[in-house]
């Protein structure tokens, strides 16, 4: 059957409005759950950089986070401090930078006097799955525990005095971008703080 332009236009407008209304309602319904998942993921990430996250259930993550983690600002950057019995054990410093496909962000954990890293976690990355995306795997991230932080000696791949980091084969650009992002962040935050 033949239908006029006006009918077509009206049909599209009504249909689009109806579908958007349904989607908006669904989104409102799911929102609390999605937000709580996002928060949990963030808390788990912060605990991970202090090596506190091993095999914790979701509830334990929330409890631990509430007990030992506090929000703090270092050089005007909003990060987290890990405190035990009132004494700071370390900081989780947020970083963000450009990688191959999109931006990467996450936290770098450092000890209280900012001389060593305690861990690295990504909260957002969109690198190629199976290649650059492997920066999110433990094999890669676990290398970032206990690396020395020395002014004038940015982190680099390969064997160095006191540490070794391996890049990911087949993902040179992503690997390079990660270290560049971390070094930039350390220059802007840690070395401004007057460490060494």
């Amino acid at each position: 059957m033949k239908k006029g332009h006006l009918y077509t236009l009206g049909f599209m407008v009504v249909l689009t409005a109806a579908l958007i209304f349904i989607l908006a309602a669904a989104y409102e319904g799911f929102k609390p759950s999605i937000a709580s998942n996002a928060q949990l993921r963030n808390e788990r990430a912060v605990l991970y950089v202090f090596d506190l996250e091993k095999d914790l259930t979701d509830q334990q993550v929330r409890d631990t986070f509430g007990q030992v983690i506090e929000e703090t600002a270092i050089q005007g950057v909003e990060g987290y401090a890990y405190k035990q019995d009132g004494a700071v054990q370390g900081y989780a410093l947020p970083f963000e930078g450009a990688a191959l496909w999109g931006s990467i962000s996450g936290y770098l954990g450092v000890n209280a006097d900012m001389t060593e890293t305690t861990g690295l976690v990504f909260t957002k990355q969109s690198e190629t799955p199976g290649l650059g995306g492997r920066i999110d795997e433990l094999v890669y991230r676990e290398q970032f525990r206990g690396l020395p932080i020395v002014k004038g000696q940015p982190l680099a791949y390969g064997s160095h005095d006191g540490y070794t980091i391996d890049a990911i084969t087949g993902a040179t650009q992503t690997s390079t971008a990660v270290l560049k992002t971390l070094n930039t962040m350390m220059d802007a935050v840690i070395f401004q703080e007057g460490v060494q």
Partner: protein
Amino acid sequence: MSNKSCQMCDIAKTQVVRENQVLRQVLGICSSLAVTNSLNNSLVMGLGLSFVTALSSFTLSAMRDIIPHRVRMLVQTLVIAVYVIFVDLFLQAYLPEISKQLGPYVGLIITNCIIMGRAEAFAQKNPPVPALFDGLFAGLGYTAVLLFVSLIREVLGFGTIFGMNVNFLGFTTWTIMIMPPAAFFIIGSMIWFLNARGLKKSAPKAK
């Protein structure tokens, strides 16, 4: 399939076996290559796609008399997009880990040719209930292929089934199985096998 009441069985058999969307129509290959390195991901992806195909076919079929013909593809895309976003939100809310692993592929269900294929080929001309089952079984046929491919890939690539260790012999896992090319070879071999069998069956008739 002797009686007419078994239209469902017929649709099911056609969609899952005879005209399997992945193996016979060669549709939905992108996600078949991408997500099949673990059974969990394949299952969720397959169920997500079945849900979207079934409901979008149902909806489009219910509206088939009022959709202006010249904008039908716009309407199809719109309806499919709504269901896909719904699945995406659902996964983010209740299965956050799987949602993270599937990443962009859930959103890409929209571009899966199977859905629009069924909308164009079946839902457009048939009543809602058969359209619902047609979409559902097309999705389940896709799911079956995905599960078969990921069974091979997960066992050989990770030594696990649904994340449970089955690597009792301690063999070295194949890294290639985790990467998309593995699915390319497996699906390619399956299509080859089916085509070769189909040719053999039809050869005497052709004479």
